[in-house]
């Protein structure tokens, strides 16, 4: 399967639907080990992404991703804004000029996105951040040969659930130390939704 502009647009439309639907849930997660704004932040950002997506013309997938990145950077704020922004910016740069995006390029894009998040956030796997979902998802992309929607969802969901058991050392949740254990990381929950949306869009295309 190849990933086209309309798939990308579809992807972020579904992401936005999920985020809006789960706005309160995400905020509640952030209430426990953060500052009660993650759902609000994400909902503001992705609403803006989608508002513009429908009014613009894109030549290639990289353009959509760039648009998403710039909108998130300028609308989300907090920790998650620059991190998701950086992710999609790096993704966009990695697939620039490749249209439609094939599986390997898509994988490469995700690798770059993950690298971007790690560098920007000075964090690594196992610190109870969105990296804990990005990283296993990138792994499964690398180990597979083509889009495996159900597998992606499964891996992403499990990774998200696993953040429960981690003690946070980066981001705001780090202040909660041991008390951060037992709760899902909000940014991991929204990252899960991004990959769940991707899987659904791919599944729909099949």
């Amino acid at each position, binding site marked *: 399967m190849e990933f086209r502009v309309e798939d990308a647009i579809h992807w972020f439309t579904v992401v936005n639907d999920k985020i809006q639907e789960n706005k309160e849930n995400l905020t509640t997660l952030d209430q426990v*080990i953060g500052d009660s704004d993650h759902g609000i932040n994400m909902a503001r950002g992705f609403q803006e992404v989608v508002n513009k997506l429908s009014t613009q013309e894109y030549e290639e997938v990289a353009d959509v991703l760039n648009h998403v990145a710039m909108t998130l950077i300028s609308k989300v704020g*907090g920790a998650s804004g620059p991190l998701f922004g950086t992710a999609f910016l790096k993704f966009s740069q990695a697939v620039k000029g490749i249209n439609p995006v094939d599986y390997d390029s898509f994988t490469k894009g995700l690798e770059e996105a993950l690298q971007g998040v790690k560098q920007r956030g000075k964090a690594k796997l196992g610190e109870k951040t969105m990296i804990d979902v990005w990283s296993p998802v990138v792994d499964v992309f690398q180990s597979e040969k083509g889009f495996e929607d159900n597998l992606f969802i499964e891996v992403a969901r499990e990774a998200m659930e696993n953040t429960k058991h981690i003690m946070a*050392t*980066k981001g705001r949740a780090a202040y*909660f130390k041991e008390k951060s254990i037992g709760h899902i990381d909000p940014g991991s929950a929204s990252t899960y939704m991004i990959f769940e949306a991707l899987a659904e869009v791919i599944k729909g295309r099949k």
Partner: protein
Amino acid sequence: MKKIINDPNIVVQDMLKGMVAANPATIKQLPDTTVIVRSDAPTINKVGLVSGGGSGHEPAHAGYVGKGMLDAAVAGEVFTSPTPDQVLEAIKAVDGGSGVFLVIKNYTGDVLNFEMAAELAEAEGIKVEHVIVNDDVAVEDSSFTTGRRGIAGTIFVHKIAGAKAEQGATLDEVKSVAEKVVANVRSMGMALTPCTVPAAGKPSFNLKENEMEIGIGIHGESGIERKEISTADEIASELVTKILDDGVHVRGDDVAIMINGLGATPEMELNIVNSKVNEILNEKGIHVYKTFIGEYMTALEMAGCSVTLLKLDDELKTLLNLSSEAPAFRV
């Protein structure tokens, strides 16, 4: 949620409108931004001072914009760091050719967004330096974690770096005095009640009727301990002891004190806390040079307070005493 607002989604814009209406001669809002700058910005050949962060900490930071303090303050959504494009606008508006200095509180969001803005500004040829304030001793100082948070001590950085810049100091000089303040300032807070982010609509945590939380953050982040409310003297003593344990303030030092209300705590109680803080410092042979009591760095309507100690040398004393026209910190 009981708040005097119009719509939880536009509190920041509504607030900024009200601020500018109150100080039309001295500040202005950059069009289509959440940036408040001095109305005469940029000051040519002066280092521009920019700070900012999530809203909900008023008067931080827009209240500190004025001659002798900040040139610009960038307001994010409530408890959410502002975005790089907004910070960039602020930097561009206050650059008078001598570069721009950013005062950043140590929260991942603030650091990331301000860093990205600095990168963008530098790409446009503006020299940018920054300091990261991390005065909250409730959190361990570690390079493996997010590290200490920036809280009320930040206001001393604004004041002192602001005075230095006003004197015509270079970007490096401003940076170096700001770093001195950061090295010398420690704070710790406590809360009796939570606060509610308007758009969230419910309190960010709960405390029992007889409970307080020691070491809490200004966004309601977890503190050191939850326990039964004790007396003002015990609370003051616990906060000061933890600060002194950090070893920065010792017998013979001159210090400035800030007793900061988090939002709902009456000034009466802040004064009661100050009385004990003073007594303890006297006992320890630490000399109180100046005391600031009031709401400087709040957490919406949280009830509670923080204590800040800043160790002073002659340079810092002079800069602390220089004039400031910022509405929330008049000297």
